[in-house]
C-alpha cells in the first residue's frame, strides 16, 4: 500500500503528465532526489519514476529521432549484415554517450531516473530507423530493471560506473521466460560463493556485454535464481553470434559455462518473481519497439506508393492500395493511443497497470506483424529486397514479438492472472 504522501506525489504527477503543455515545466525532480537517502531512491525508482513532463518527452523523442536518422538510417542495410559485416560500434558508443542506456537508472548511478514513458518514446524513435539498437537498449534496460527489482543495487552501481559501453552492458536471455521453458544453468554453492555450469541458450548481447545475468537452478531447488557473471571469465565459452531472423545487430550467443564464478542477484529461488516484475514494466517498452517498426514500415510504403507508377498512375490511386495503407495507418494510430495510456498507467501505478502493459505488448506486437507484411507487399518485388528496409522491418517485427517469452503462453498467462 502506498502512503498518503506517495499517493499525492503520484496524483500530482498525473497532472504534470496531463497538463504541462500549458504550465511551465515543474521543478526538475532530479534535484529533490539527490537529497534523499538510498531507501527513498529505491522507492523513487520503483514507484515515482514518472517525472517526465510532456515537454521532456518531446525533447527525448526529438533527440532519439535525430540520433536515429543520423547514426542509424544511413547504414541500415550495412549494419544489418552482422555477423557477416562489421558491427555498428560507432552508433552504439554514441548512444551510450547521450545516455540512452541510462534512462531508467536512478540518479545516483548517473541515471536519468525516468519511467517507461521515457524509455518507450526513445525506443519508438530508434526503432523507426533500426530496431537492432532498440533491441540492445531493451535488453540492457530489462537487465537493469531485473537488478533493480531484485534490489541488487550495489552490483548495479558497480556496473554503471564502467567507462566503456561494452563494459557497461549487461546481457540477458530476454526472449525466454525461464519458468516456462527451462533454459537454465546449474548453480553450485560453496560457502557464500556460487559457481555456474551447464549451457545457456540465446544469451542476447552475450558477445558484446561485459557481464551477463544468467538464470540457473541450484541443486535441490525447483525454483530458479538469477546470477551475475563476468563474461570474460575463463570458464565461459561462447558460440559464434547466432544467425537469426531479425535484430541482426543485437546478437545473441549460446553459452557454455564451466565453473564460472557468479554473484547471486536478489535472493535464491526468486528468479521468477523478479522476471515477472521486470516483465510487467518492460512489456510496454517492447510494444513501443513494435510501434517504431510499424511507423517506419508505413512511412516507407506511403512514400513509395506516392511515387511508384503502375497501370498509368501512382499506385496510391488504386483504391485497394489505399485500403491497405489505411489499415496500416489505423493500426498505428491505435497503437499510439494504447502505448501512451499504458505508459502512463505503468508510470503512475494506476490500478491494473501490469495488465495494461502486457495487453499493449501482446496486441501491438500482433499488429506489427500484420502491418509489416503489408509494408513489403506495397513495394512489390523491391519490398523483398534489402534496399528499402521493408524486409528488415518485417523480420524485426516478428522478432520483437518473441520478446519476454513464447507469445501464446504470454496470452495464456494473461488470462490465468485473471482467473
Amino acid at each position, binding site marked *: 500500500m502506498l502512503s498518503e504522501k506517495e499517493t499525492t506525489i503520484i496524483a500530482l504527477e498525473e497532472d504534470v503528465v496531463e497538463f504541462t503543455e500549458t504550465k511551465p515545466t515543474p521543478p526538475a525532480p532530479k534535484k529533490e532526489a539527490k537529497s534523499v537517502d538510498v531507501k527513498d531512491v529505491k522507492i523513487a525508482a520503483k514507484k515515482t519514476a514518472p517525472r517526465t513532463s510532456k515537454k521532456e518527452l518531446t525533447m527525448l523523442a526529438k533527440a532519439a529521432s535525430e540520433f536515429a536518422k543520423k547514426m542509424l538510417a544511413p547504414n541500415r542495410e550495412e549494419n544489418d549484415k552482422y555477423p557477416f559485416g562489421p558491427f555498428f560500434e560507432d552508433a552504439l558508443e554514441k548512444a551510450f554517450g547521450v545516455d540512452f542506456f541510462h534512462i531508467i537508472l536512478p540518479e545516483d548511478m548517473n541515471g536519468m531516473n525516468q519511467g517507461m514513458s521515457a524509455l518507450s518514446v526513445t525506443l519508438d524513435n530508434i526503432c523507426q530507423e533500426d530496431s537492432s539498437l532498440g533491441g540492445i537498449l531493451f535488453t540492457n534496460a530489462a537487465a537493469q530493471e531485473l537488478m533493480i527489482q531484485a534490489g541488487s543495487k550495489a552490483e548495479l552501481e558497480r556496473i554503471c560506473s564502467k567507462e566503456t559501453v561494452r563494459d557497461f552492458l549487461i546481457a540477458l536471455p530476454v526472449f525466454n521466460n525461464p519458468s516456462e521453458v527451462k533454459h537454465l544453468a546449474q548453480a553450485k554453492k560453496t560457502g557464500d560463493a556460487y559457481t555456474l555450469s551447464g549451457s545457456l541458450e540465446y544469451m542476447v548481447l552475450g558477445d558484446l556485454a561485459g557481464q551477463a545475468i544468467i538464470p540457473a537452478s541450484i541443486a535441490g531447488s525447483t525454483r530458479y535464481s538469477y546470477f551475475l557473471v563476468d563474461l570474460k571469465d575463463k570458464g565461459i565459452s561462447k558460440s559464434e553470434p547466432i544467425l537469426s531472423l531479425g535484430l541482426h545487430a543485437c546478437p545473441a550467443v549460446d553459452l557454455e559455462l564451466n565453473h564460472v564464478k557468479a554473484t547471486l542477484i536478489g535472493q535464491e529461488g526468486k528468479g521468477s518473481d523478479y522476471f515477472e516484475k521486470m516483465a510487467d514494466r518492460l512489456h510496454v517498452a517492447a510494444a513501443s519497439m513494435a510501434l517504431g517498426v510499424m511507423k517506419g514500415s508505413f512511412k516507407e510504403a506511403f512514400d513509395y506508393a506516392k511515387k511508384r507508377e503502375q497501370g498509368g498512375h501512382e499506385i496510391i490511386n*488504386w*483504391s*485497394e492500395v*489505399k*485500403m491497405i495503407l489505411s489499415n496500416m495507418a489505423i493500426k498505428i494510430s491505435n497503437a499510439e493511443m494504447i502505448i501512451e495510456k499504458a505508459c502512463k498507467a505503468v508510470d503512475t501505478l494506476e490500478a491494473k497497470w501490469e495488465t495494461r502493459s502486457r495487453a499493449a505488448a501482446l496486441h501491438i506486437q500482433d499488429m506489427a506483424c500484420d502491418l509489416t507484411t503489408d509494408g513489403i507487399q506495397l513495394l512489390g518485388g523491391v519490398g523483398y529486397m534489402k534496399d528499402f528496409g521493408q524486409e528488415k522491418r518485417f523480420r524485426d517485427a516478428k522478432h520483437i514479438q518473441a520478446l519476454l517469452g513464447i507469445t501464446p503462453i504470454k496470452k495464456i498467462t494473461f488470462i490465468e492472472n485473471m482467473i
Partner: protein
Amino acid sequence: MISRSEIKSYLSKEPLFDDMTCSLKATTRQPAAMIKETRKIIELARRFNKEVIEPYALELDRTMQKDPDYLPWEFVKKANEWGFFTLWIPKIFGGHGYNIPSLSYFMEETGSACLGLSNLICVHYLAVSTIFASWNLSLISKLCRLVAQGEKTGVPCLLSTAITEPGAGTDVEEVELVDRGKVACSATKVEGGYLINGSKVFISSGHVSQWHMVICYTDLKKPSENMIILAVETGSKGFSFGRVEHKMGVKGCPASELIFDNCFVPDDLVLLSRDHTGKQKRGVKETCGQILDYVLASSRAGVSAWGAGAARGAYETALDFALTTEVNGKTLANHEWAQSMLAEMYKNVCIARLTYIETNYANGMYGLFKTIQMKPLFYYFKYMPMILLDKFAPMILNLASTTWLFRKIQLDWQSDPEFHRTAGWGSLAKFTGTDMGMKNCQMALEIMGQSGLRQDRRAEKILRDSKLLQIFEGTNQLNRLNLFKCLVAKNNPMIKVFEKE
C-alpha cells in the same frame, strides 16, 4: 528411377500419401455416373431455391421473430412433396438412392438461400446416417421405409438425432471426454426392452420429427462403454417435447427439448447396444468411437457444405449490392477495394467447398459410403428395378447375417488410418467451412453499410444463421482438437489429447 519398396516406404511417412490425395484416388475409383447425378441434384436444388425457399425465407424468419413457437409444418410438407426426405436413401431401403456426396452440394445450394429451411430438410439425414452407422440393416430398412411411406401418403416422416444433454454438449461428441462428462440420459434394461429417463436439448427438427434416434447410456458411470442407440417415436408413452429454444438464427428449424420419463423402447427398436458393439474386432469403447466418427465424418462434411452455403449467400448478397449501388458516383463493384474483398469472399466459398468435397471422397473410399459407392454395387442398385428391390430387399436385409456381414466390412475392415482419415477430414471440413461462412457474413456486412443491417436485405439474417454452424456438430474448437488427434497425433504415444490440464 526409384524402386517400388522405396516408394512404399517414402509414401508411408507423414504426411501419408493417402491422407494427401483423396481426390486423386477417388477420381479413378468412383462411379462416373456420380457426375450426372450431382448435376441433377444441383439443378433441382436451384429450382427449389427459386420456387420455394427464396420467396419464403425472409418471411419465415420474420414470423419466427414474432411468434417463436411457430412450427414450419407447411414447409416440411412441401419438402416432402419434392421428395427430399428419401432422395438420398438407398434404393434397397425404399429411397431414390442418389449418391450421398451429392447431398452436400444440395446443402450448399439450399443453405445459400436459407440455412434454417435447409436444416429442416437435412438434419433428417444426420439421423439417417446415425442409423446407417449402426449397420443394423433390418431396423434401417424398417425406418427408411416409414420415411418412404410418409412421402407417398404426404404425411412427412422425419427423423432427428438426439445426443446433446443439458449437462453434456461437447462431452458427448467425443468418446475421450464422455466418461468425464455429466451425462444423465439413461437406459435401463427391463424385460423386453429399455426404459429411458432424462432429457435431451437443442435437438434440431425435434418437434417436427416422427422418430428420434436417441443416444443414451446403460451405465452413466462409464458411458463410453455403455452407449446405446434407441429409436423413439413421437407419441410414445413417457416421451414428450419440452421447450422450443428461442435462437438468434436458423429460426426456421426448431431446436427442441426431448423429455423421457420411463419411456419404454422395445428390444426390436434397439439400433445398437453393447451386445452388438461387444462383438466387433475393436473394443467396445473404440467401436462406439468408430460409430460416432462414421456419423460425424459424413455429417460434418454436410455442415461444412452449409458453411459454404452461408459463405455463398453472403457473397452473393454483397455482390448484388455492389452491382446495384453507386458509391462516390461509381458502381461499387467497380471500386477496386470492393473487387478485392469480393474475390476474397469468392475464394472463401471455394475453399469451404473443396474441404467438404475432399472429405466426401475420403468417406467414399474409406468411410460410410464405401460399400455403396463400390462400382458394381452402385450400378447394380442404380439400375435394379424398384419392384424387385421392394420385394426382395427386406427379406435379405432382415437376415441377421446381413447385418453381421455389413458390420464386418464397415466396422472391422476399416483400418485405423482410414478411420482417422475420414474423421480428421470431417473435422477439418467442418471448422473450415463454417469459419468461412462466418467470415463472409462479416465481410458482407462491412461492405453493405446500413443495408447490411436490415432484415429485408438478407445479409444480417445470414450472419445470424451462420454463427450456429460454428457451434453444433461439435464446436469448432472441438473439431480442431479432433483433427489434431486424428491427423497429427495419430498413434504417437507421446501425444495426449484431452488430457486434464
